[in-house]
C-alpha cells in the first residue's frame, strides 16, 4: 500500500515536471525550469509562470478530483461503472457553468462561475442517485446517467446557440470534451478553493466506505451515519466536479479507468482506493494533457477525446463483465 502510494507520487512528480517543460515554445528543459523559479526578464518566464504552470496545476488538481470522485461513487454505490462523467454529473456542471457565463453571473461575481457549476453538479448527482436508488443497480444507474447527460448536454447546446456571440456555438465541443488550453492563474484561483474543499470532504469518507462493504445494516451497526455519508459524498463530488468542469469542461472516463486499474493493488478496499485514485487521476490527466500538446500542438485536441479513447474500451469490457454477473 505504501509502496503503491510512493510509486504513484513519483509518477505524478515526473509527469508534472514533463508538463512544465513540454510545449510549443520548445525551450531547453533546464532553462524553462530556471525561468519558472527566477524571473530573468525574458519572455520564457512569462510562458512558464502564466501558461505552463497554471495548466500543470489544473491538470494535477482536476485529475485528482475526477479520480477520487470516481472511486468514492464506485465505493458508495458498490458498482464499478459509476463515474461522474458517465452518469451526467459533469454534464450538469457544464450546464451550470454555461448558464453562469451567458447570463453574466460569472462576470458579475468572482466565484459565480464555479458556484453555478457546483449547483449544476449537485442537481445532477441528486437526480442520478434518486433515480438509481441506494444500491445503485447497474442498469438503472447507467440509464439515469444517459438521460441526465443527454438532457444537460442538449440544454448546454441550446444556451450556447442562443448566445449573441458568434463563437459561443463552436464552444459546445469544449464543454462536452474538455480542454486545458490557454488557461491562466485566474482559473487556478477560481477552481482551487472548491476543489480543495471537495477533496477534503471525499477523504473523510474512507472509514464509511470500508464499513459499507459489509452492507448497510452492518455499517450502521459499526456507527456509520449513512445519511451523513451520503450528504458528504454528494457535496464532495459536486464540489470537485463542479469546480473542475467550470474551468476545463467535461472530461470523462478518468474516474472510471483509474479506480479500476488501481483496485487490485489496494486489496479492493474502497477507502484505500480514494487516495490512490486521486494520485492516479492526476497522473492520467497530466499524461493526457502532455499528449494533446505533443500530438497536435496547434489544434487544441480535446482532453476528453484522449481519455475516451483510453476509457471507452475499458467501459465496454466492464459492461461485458457485469452482464455476466447479472445473468
Amino acid at each position, binding site marked *: 500500500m505504501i509502496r503503491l502510494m510512493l510509486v504513484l507520487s513519483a509518477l505524478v512528480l515526473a509527469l508534472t515536471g514533463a508538463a512544465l517543460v513540454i510545449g510549443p*515554445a520548445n525551450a531547453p528543459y533546464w532553462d524553462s525550469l530556471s525561468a519558472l523559479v527566477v524571473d530573468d526578464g525574458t*519572455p520564457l518566464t512569462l510562458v512558464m509562470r502564466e501558461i505552463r504552470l497554471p495548466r500543470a496545476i489544473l491538470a494535477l488538481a482536476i485529475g485528482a478530483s475526477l479520480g477520487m470522485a470516481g472511486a468514492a461513487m464506485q465505493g458508495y454505490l458498490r458498482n464499478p461503472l459509476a463515474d461522474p462523467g458517465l452518469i451526467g454529473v459533469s454534464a450538469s456542471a457544464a450546464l451550470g457553468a454555461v448558464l453562469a*457565463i451567458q447570463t453574466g453571473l460569472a*462576470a458579475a461575481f468572482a466565484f459565480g462561475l464555479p458556484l453555478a457549476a457546483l449547483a449544476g453538479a449537485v442537481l445532477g448527482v441528486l437526480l442520478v442517485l434518486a433515480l438509481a436508488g441506494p444500491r445503485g443497480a447497474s442498469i438503472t444507474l447507467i440509464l439515469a446517467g444517459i438521460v441526465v447527460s443527454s438532457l444537460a448536454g442538449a440544454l448546454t447546446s441550446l444556451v450556447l446557440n442562443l*448566445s449573441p456571440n458568434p463563437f459561443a456555438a463552436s464552444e459546445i465541443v469544449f464543454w462536452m470534451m474538455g480542454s486545458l488550453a490557454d488557461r491562466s492563474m485566474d482559473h487556478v484561483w477560481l477552481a482551487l478553493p472548491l476543489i480543495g474543499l471537495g477533496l477534503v470532504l471525499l477523504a473523510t469518507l474512507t472509514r464509511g466506505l470500508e464499513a459499507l462493504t459489509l452492507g448497510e445494516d452492518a455499517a450502521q451497526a459499526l456507527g456509520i451515519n449513512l445519511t451523513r455519508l451520503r450528504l458528504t459524498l454528494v457535496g464532495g463530488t459536486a464540489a470537485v466536479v463542479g469546480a473542475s468542469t467550470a474551468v476545463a469542461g467535461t472530461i470523462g472516463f478518468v474516474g472510471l479507468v483509474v479506480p479500476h486499474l488501481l483496485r487490485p493493488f489496494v486489496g479492493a478496499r474502497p477507502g484505500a482506493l480514494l487516495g490512490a485514485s486521486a494520485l492516479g487521476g492526476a497522473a492520467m490527466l497530466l499524461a493526457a494533457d502532455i499528449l494533446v500538446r505533443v500530438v497536435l500542438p*496547434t489544434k487544441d485536441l480535446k482532453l476528453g477525446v484522449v481519455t475516451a479513447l483510453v476509457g471507452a474500451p475499458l467501459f465496454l469490457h466492464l459492461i461485458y463483465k457485469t452482464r455476466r454477473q447479472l445473468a
Partner: protein
Amino acid sequence: MSRFDRLCCAVAGCLATVSPAVGQVAADPGVPAAPPERVVSMNLCTDQLAMMMADDGQLHSVSYLSQQARGSALVEQARQYVPNRGLAEEIYLMDPDLVIAGSFSDRTTLDMLRRLDVPVAVFEPAGNLSDIRDRVRRMGAVLHREEAAARMVARFEARLADLAAQAPPAGDRPRAALYSANGWSSGGKTLPGQIVTAAGFDLVADDFGLAWGGFLPLELLAMSDPDAVITGQPYPADSRAEEILDHPVVAHLKRDSMRGIVSDQDWSCGTPLVLDAIERLAQARRMATGAGR
C-alpha cells in the same frame, strides 16, 4: 403575370418554362446595360462601396448589418436606406433593377433572384490592399459611375503612397501581432495583415510562416515578444474563444502605449476606409517609437 405569381412560380421551380432568359448581361456578369435606378445591396462590404459611390436615389436598400455599430463603419449613412436581411422574398418585393451580393451570400437566394430575372452582381471579398482598386472599379462599372470610381481609386492610391513614404525602412520597423479569437493570427497575405504592414510594422505571424494566417499558440506569441499586439473588439456576451484575448500574457504584451489599438469596423471590409485604420495605426506607431526608442 403578377409579381406574386412569378414568385410562387420560382419557388415551385416552374419559371424556366414560363419566362425566357433575359440575356442582356454584358461580358462582366452583373453589369447592367443601362444605369440601374433601384439597387439593393445585401452584403456588408458591397454596402460600403455602394454607399460611397452611388448617385442620389440610386441605392434603395442595404443589409441590416450595415446599420449595426458592431461591424459597420458607416452606420449613420446606412440608416438612410431600407435595411434588408438577404431574403429572396423581401428583396424581390423591393423590385430592384440590380442586386449586389458578396460571394458568401446565400447561393440559393441568388439563384432564385436570377430565375426571377433580377440582375445579380456578385463581388468577391477583397483579400488584400491591391484588390480594393479592382472592387472600387467594378462597383463603378455595375453602378455606371465609372468617373466616381476613377476619382476614388486615384485618391486611394495617392494616400496609400503617402503612407508608404512615411513608413520606416526595413530593419527599423516595430513588430506587431494580430491576435484574435482562438489564437488566430493573420499574416502579410491577408487584408488585416496588409493594413498592419502598410502602417509600418512587421508581422509576427510572417515569422512563423503564417502569411495566410493561422493558429498561433499563446506560448509562441509570448516568446516572440512583439512590440504591439492588436486584438479585435469582442462580441457581446462572453465566449471561451475570445477569453484568450483577456489572458494575462496578452494583457502583459499589450502593456504600453500601443494597447489602445484594436481592429475595428474600418478593418472589416476591403474598401478605401481601411486607409483610416492604417493612419490611426501609423500614428500610434510614431507615438510609441518616438517615446520608446
